[in-house]
């Protein structure tokens, strides 16, 4: 797949916003930290929402996308995101635990919706695993907790140590989850081959022409077209910055730098998540002419 920056930003920004909300709620943070934290969480969610509009060909019709929540995880996400934002804002305003718990439920629902958008597609075998949903939750919580640690160090130093420890633990879990999915995907065998794609039972089939000389939507949307070095660099950036570097920075008492490094790592992680997924339609687009 060709990673779309709008979706990379959407999923990483709202993940951090959701994680931050969960961290604040779990810590029952005192007023100034809670207020500023909720505002920051809402800002991240709003930025993610704004980024998502750039993915649409017809953003002015975005309101229609809430219609098919019975069948479409994308539609469910479109409902869950503003619902969670509203509940998070309400909790920040009222500090009512009932509202807070409702916010937690909406937050988890949003995580599941976002993950299931990718995990529900049977054709993209790299995404078709519960690990996709688990990793969206863990990685979002990890970045939110690191951000919470940075906020606590600034506004409420008594909580700094606890939140840094939580960020380390959840970060390690998220890292393990991501390593597990990388290991799983490395062993995947594609279900479709050229033989099933065109229905000719022969082990050696080569494409001669794909029916267009200048490319098409199919070549632009499903191929990232980057050299192998770029993909490898994204993978190593992800592996280094999602947990090891932020962990060292947290231990060194630099939670804000840790969060920034981790966010860059998550951008690389999400980019690689898309780039590594091989769509079976690519079998039909192997050679131009």
């Amino acid at each position, binding site marked *: 797949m060709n990673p779309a920056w709008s979706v990379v930003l959407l999923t990483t920004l709202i993940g951090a916003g959701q994680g931050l909300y969960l961290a604040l709620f779990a810590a029952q943070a005192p007023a100034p930290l809670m207020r500023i934290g909720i505002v920051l969480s809402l800002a991240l969610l709003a930025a993610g929402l704004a980024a998502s509009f750039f993915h649409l060909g017809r953003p002015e*019709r975005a309101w229609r996308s809430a219609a098919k929540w019975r069948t*479409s995880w994308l539609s469910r996400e479109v409902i869950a995101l503003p619902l969670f934002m509203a509940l998070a804002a309400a909790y920040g305003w009222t500090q009512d635990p009932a509202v807070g718990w409702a916010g937690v439920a909406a937050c988890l629902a949003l995580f599941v919706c976002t993950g299931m958008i990718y995990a529900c597609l049977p054709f993209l075998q790299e995404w078709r695993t519960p690990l996709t949903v688990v990793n969206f939750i863990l990685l979002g919580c990890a970045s939110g907790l690191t951000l919470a640690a940075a906020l606590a160090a600034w506004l409420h130093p008594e909580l700094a140590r606890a939140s840094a420890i939580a960020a380390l633990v959840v970060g390690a879990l998220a890292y393990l989850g991501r390593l597990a999915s990388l290991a799983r995907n490395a062993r995947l065998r594609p*279900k479709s081959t050229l033989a099933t794609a065109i*229905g000719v039972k022969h082990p050696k089939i080569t494409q001669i022409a794909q029916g267009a000389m200048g490319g098409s939507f199919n070549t632009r949307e499903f191929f990232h077209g980057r050299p192998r070095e770029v993909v490898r660099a994204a993978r190593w950036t992800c592996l280094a910055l999602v947990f090891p570097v932020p962990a060292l920075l947290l231990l060194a008492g630099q939670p804000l730098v840790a969060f920034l490094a981790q966010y860059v790592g998550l951008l690389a992680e999400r980019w690689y998540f898309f780039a590594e997924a091989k769509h079976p*339609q690519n079998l039909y687009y192997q050679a131009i002419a």
Partner: protein
Amino acid sequence: MSKQLALVIDLNVCVGCHACVTSCKEWNTQGAAGPLTDQNAYGADPTGTFFNRVQTFEVGEFPNTETVHFPKSCLHCEDPPCVPVCPTGASYKRAEDGIVLVDYDKCIGCKYCSWACPYGAREVDGEQKVMKKCTLCVDRIYDAKLPEAERKPACVLACPTSARLFGDIHDPESEASRAIREQGGYALMPEWGTHPANHYLPRRKTGKRLHADELERHDNPLKVDGRLPRPSPDAPALDDVTSW
């Protein structure tokens, strides 16, 4: 049982002339589904929206190779994975004839349905920014103003070798059903359980067995083939120049 309209494409007959591609584009760029826009049409990298493309594959290793021309369009799956994922309901499968369509006025261009299609049958229009795909020429197959014989998709009418059959594959007596049944029709990527309605007929070896009695004119009562009298060398030739 409900109707399921579909194409049956005979790979044994397709010569890869792209007539179905051009007639599809011509009909649909000006019909209800149009326009199918092009970008940079006369430049170095022309690109555009098509419902139907003909691809070419080489099967085997030189010198034992075979060229397969492979027309590819939406397969109008009986269980289309692209439909339930659509967040707006713009993608839908018609109950009355099984055609999978996109409502261009509802589509938000999120491209999620194209991710959910293993065949790459959907393309975003570069100008209108909505998802487009084969409609089986829904705006002409029911057009009562057209003569009965022309109420078929444009690609089917254009095919010079009749490699494309059109019909209801739920009707066992239709031409399409019979071709699938009798000529080994198959579906693409059956491993995903999408149950494509469009089928393909395989390449076949066509041969002819000659029997001895076919080599001579058995309807010639005198059996005198090959024993016609030769004209004499000085007999007049047809052109009065050469001689026998």
